[in-house]
């Protein structure tokens, strides 16, 4: 019976990625290769981040929020952004439009993130007899993460792939991108310093991901207009 729960949570965590791929024109243009390459880049980025974290961070003595450590984590989080940059610009993609490129990269990135961070806890934990809401929250988080990664990929493609952008929008683009990149630090700040409960943090993540997605969409379409 609890295998049932595992299947449910797995569907919640990984389902949207599959749905996104099949629903949008991505499946028609066969961008699977791009997504896989993006996933591999994510893996490498994750490894580099791990090494940096192990080198620069010390083990926290108390559970509280340490500003210095969090700043270090933000800086290491920017490695993520570098990885995305690499995936968007340096990899040779077949002729797919910019529109689809960022979606494919974002999707691959988010899928690798979900698998790496959420599959193992799900397999080990959700199959037990004891019921907790934890894995359902994790699935919702995965959904929010997908949206945020897509927005970040969109802004990234705007920043690095599009040459002519309206002057006024540039700082906004960079601001939104920075906000998205530092989102993990913001959530950990909420969890540790303000001591929000898991469901409040997940609610915040979903809300903020929708808001940021809306902003990115607006910015993206604003930059489309001159062309």
């Amino acid at each position, binding site marked *: *019976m609890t295998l*049932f729960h595992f299947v*449910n949570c797995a569907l919640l965590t990984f389902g949207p990625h599959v749905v996104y791929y*099949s629903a*949008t024109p991505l499946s028609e243009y066969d961008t699977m290769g791009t997504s896989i390459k993006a996933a591999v880049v994510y893996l490498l980025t994750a490894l580099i981040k791990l090494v940096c974290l192990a080198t620069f961070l010390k083990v926290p003595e108390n559970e509280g929020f340490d500003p210095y450590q969090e700043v270090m984590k933000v800086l290491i989080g920017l490695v993520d952004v570098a990885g995305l940059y690499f995936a968007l610009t340096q990899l040779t993609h077949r002729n797919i439009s910019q529109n689809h490129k960022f979606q494919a990269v974002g999707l691959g990135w988010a899928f690798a993130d979900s698998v790496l961070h959420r599959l193992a806890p799900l397999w080990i934990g959700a199959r*037990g007899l004891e*019921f907790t809401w934890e894995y359902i929250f994790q699935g919702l988080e995965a959904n929010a993460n997908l949206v945020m990664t897509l927005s970040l990929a969109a802004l990234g493609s705007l920043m690095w792939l599009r040459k002519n952008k309206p002057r006024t929008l540039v700082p906004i683009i960079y601001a939104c991108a920075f906000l998205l990149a530092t989102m993990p630090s913001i959530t950990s700040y909420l969890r540790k310093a303000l001591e929000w409960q898991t469901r409040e943090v997940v609610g915040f993540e979903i809300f903020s991901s929708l808001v940021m997605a809306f902003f990115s969409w607006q910015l993206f379409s604003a930059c489309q207009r001159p062309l």
Partner: protein
Amino acid sequence: MAAPATTEAFSNLSYSMFSLLLILFACVELGDAASAVHVYRLIQYDLGGVPLGSRISHLNHHATSLPLDPNADLSRSALLVPLLDLDLDLSFLTDYITRKKPLGGLLILLPQKLGNKFADFGKHVDLTRLKTVLHQLEDLLVHAELPYPVYFAYESSTFDTLLGDIRGKNFSSQPATSTNGGYKLVVSTPEAKKLSPPTISNFQGWLPGQKDGDSEQLPTIAIVASYDTFGAAPALSVGSDSNGSGVAALLEIARLFSRLYSNPKTRGKYNLLFGLTSGGPYNYNGTQKWLRSFDQRVREGIDYAICLNSVGSWENDLWMHVSKPPENVYIKEIYDGFSEVAQDMGFSINVKHKKINISNPRVAWEHEQFSRFRVTALTLSGLSAAPEFLQSTGNLHDTRKSADEKAVARTVKLVAESLARQIYGHKGKKIDIFADGSSLAVNVHHIRSWLDLLSRTPRVAPFLSKNNPFIAALKKELSDHTVEVHVQNEVLDGAFTFYDSTEATLNIYQVAGVTFDFLFLMVLGSYLIVLFSFLVITTRGLDDLINIFRRPAVRKSKSA
């Protein structure tokens, strides 16, 4: 006509949505993780081929509790019963057991005051009322065949919250099942196996008296106590009063006389024999074997034997149980000796005569085994009536608090003083050999430390192997004070067969129920479908969405 129909439809829809949400939230609340609790199993044994006790050790059922509908089907539920509520509900349980109704499992919660660790904490409990309820419950459980697992556990905050939740759900008059969710109690132990016939170890130690030079044998006085127990929960059967108090008293008497006998000038003209026997609850089978192992001359040399049983819980009256009539010369002599000392100490000692019936295998007191070998013997006890078979042998309520070291000390003084007056020929004199404050004073700390050790050691014979450190401790203590310490290992006679598995870990899980999983799946499915449609509409347009469902039809028309 249309308007009322739509409002009716709308109200129906909203009602069904509301009930759906209610079921979803009723199935599970924001739960915390599983808990693990130490539990103790009811004894499982066969007596003369008749299976008794709890026959199953594995438990995996939903938890439920009283008050319950009398017709509820509990064959797939584990009943959780706190003892403090039981005095009102014992009839329910008795009914269930005597009518052999099916039950998934039974978990009885004992108040913390009975435990050793938290005996000073825990809710205030009326111990006398508890004692009666416990006696009834134990009698019921030990003499019935229960084809389901029965466990005992101590109350704790985990169980308090668990009971609160279950009782709240009971108001919807539905015991928790696998569709509703609730709590699941799981004890995963392998099935209990038969144990090989238990070994009983009898200890004896001598304090030889001072021979005058001629080779005549000195008379012997024996002091005996049985040290093993039997109770409903073997892992909790510590028997502080029955018979831990007897053991502690015997060891203290041995210590006092070893001081006297270590100096040849104060060695008396009697041999003292100390015996710690096992097999007490089983009609004193160990005592019988021990006596049988004696050389007949040695046995005939025993003037009389004093057996100690449950001497830790009396206040003003001590009982002397005999099987020879009190008018018998020897009995009268011994009784006079005791009552003299008792009078000086300020309490009374009463004689109770119980005839032995040779054809009846039931042996209620240890002295009866001596009497069957024609040795004069008596039992000193705080109990006034002979206990029934398997009663007062280390029950659940018989923990440290039921044995008072001061009562044991008084018993020690009584026995030691009377023995010393007889041995040294000071009968009738006003003399206080073991005076308080002297070097021969009764050491209450020694008694207390032995009572503490005994209250921490469950001593049910089949589960007490001869390599147990407690056995070694007894042997060492006896060797410290006596000589010629001998351990006799025998196999318990009789029709008892025991099974193992006396302790286990109970896991309590909060489960969600299949209904919840199905509902969640439906919600998830609809979410994914909505997401799919949304994405198709926004990226490809509404026509594409419709085309997905019409594609086969379109192809057919094209080919046609």
